[in-house]
């Protein structure tokens, strides 16, 4: 089993390879006439080299007993996961549902699901948040927020 540095550097090594590979179609050019793919190609190689460096460091610390540490052990990892999922769903439905309703639902959901608050607090806080931010950003600051199928 690889340790954390070895695993992450291995992933970044492949990312570097991909960067260099996908730079080729943009034309690399020569040192006296660099093309669009020139810098990304060499950056990809640098990423690979540095990733090898981190991997070597990780291997040396592995030998000293620095084994794999589960980064989500002993933490409440479900809460970040649920919150992130809520953000993604919010992003996907925002244009269709509209700012006010989707924000009420997002804030209400996060307040109930992550660290459950009383329903009264949830309802008031989510409505106040959505309306206040709508007022400040759309009405006062003139920024655009999606209206959705209901028109608000």
């Amino acid at each position, binding site marked *: 089993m690889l340790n954390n540095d070895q695993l992450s550097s291995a992933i970044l090594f492949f990312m570097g390879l991909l960067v260099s590979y996908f730079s080729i179609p943009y034309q690399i050019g020569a040192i006296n006439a660099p093309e669009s793919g020139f810098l*990304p190609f060499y950056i990809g190689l640098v*990423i690979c080299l540095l990733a090898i460096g981190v991997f070597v*460091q990780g291997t040396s610390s592995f030998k000293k007993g620095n084994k794999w540490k589960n980064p989500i052990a002993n933490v409440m990892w479900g809460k970040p996961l649920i919150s992130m999922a809520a953000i993604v769903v919010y992003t996907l439905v925002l244009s269709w549902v509209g700012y006010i309703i989707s924000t009420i639902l997002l804030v209400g959901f996060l307040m109930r699901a*992550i660290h459950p608050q009383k329903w009264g607090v949830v309802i008031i806080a989510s409505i106040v948040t959505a309306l206040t931010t709508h007022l400040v950003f759309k009405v006062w600051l003139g920024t655009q927020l999606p209206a959705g199928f209901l028109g608000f």
Partner: protein
Amino acid sequence: MESISNLLMGFNLFFQPEPILYCFIGVTIGTIVGVLPGIGPVSAISLLLPATLAITPVNAIIMLSGIYYGAMYGCSTTSILLNIPGEAASVITCLDGYQMARKGRAGPALGISAFGSYIAGTVAVVCMMLVAPELAEIALSFGPPEYFSLILCGLAMVTFLAKGGMMKALLMAAVGLFLGCVGMDIITGTPRFTLDIPELSDGIGLVPLMMGLFGVAEVLRNLEESMERNIFETKIQNILPTLKDWGESIFPIIRGSIIGFFIGLLPGGGGILATFTSYATEKKISDHPEKFGEGVIEGVAGPESANNAASTATFIPLLTLGIPPNATMAIMFGALIIHGLQPGPLLMKEHPQMFWGLIASMYVGNTLLLALNLPLIGIWVKLLKVPYPILFPLILVFCLIGTYTMNNSIIDLLIMSFFSIVGYVMIKFEYEVAPLVLALVLGSRWENALKQSLLMENGDLTIFLTRPISAAFLIIAIALILISLIPAVKKKVAMVPKEETPS
């Protein structure tokens, strides 16, 4: 003499109702985000950046800058009353500030912190006024090779003290440089790595990236832990320090101001390093070093002054060289660009009203902050009582609105979501975010400097070594990288306090 006449021009421009109002709004928001743990100046500036498009560039920069240095004032409140730093830069204030509060001396701790911040902030603005024009004058002689080497040197400095080791930080800087390549190649006009997404043709937006990496990722990390927060219940009284307090604090404030200013000038230096250096200095020269950590006022006065001086000094490399020394300045860099102002040596010549208006606003902003932080301390304490389970959905909503309103784009929200996950994973695997962000911001400029340099000398790489300034920057960069490989240095660097990811 020229500086004084320029400053008068700045005051002339600033003393209008609008700039004063925006300065007031900025420092008030800054104090709030400084007080509230979990939201910081990067998120606040990113959030308000789209809203500033409707106002003049000068007012926008005055307001956004006010948020930054205002946050540095406000963050001491949580350190003193909660033992939780509002920003990473006020970690050290927890040691003696919280102990002072426990001994019933929360008032003097908050008071000296505000006065120290005021003095240091003002001293730093005076120094900025004197140093910045000279530095800009020197930078005017820089050509593409010098800029290439300067950016490389800046990145090497940022990565030198990074958490998790220099190699990992350099790796992140390289990833940032790649992300900076996404979008249209400025020289050839070829779109690169855009995945046929029109929103990516201008590159990866700084706001979605910052909101994801700093704002949302930090909230996700906080959610893993217990949300209990205990405010130390104490009556805040005697907020004005006594003569004895002043006697013990004045020299730490002066030393903190000087230390903070010089560390703030360095890329990667920032507030946290300045505060730890100030604290270590005070402890070393104190007659009673054993009392540090038990609630001595010098342990609050020095670091808080250093923090504020450093936050002001970080504007100098941004405004004169066009090099943001930390993540907050990276978003300020983006703000200047969005408002049509190119940070760098020509900024002061082409837009003197912006530079000197900002300087004038800092003088007044520091005074406003003193007025906000001392008499209104009760309000800030009440704000601290907002529970995190109620606060975090608001922070997330702010991140979402800030990102969306930049271009009214759902794609930007998806980019933000992507970088939220990336940021969270980076925290988990101990990779620092700041080098990535700085490299991303400077990436296109660095690429242009590289290409122009190569074209100038028909691909001859010695151009970077034959020009003395460029060679000096390169030597510093290479020396830093080589030094970091020495095991003894590596050990010492690992012990240096790190710049956390400020949300």
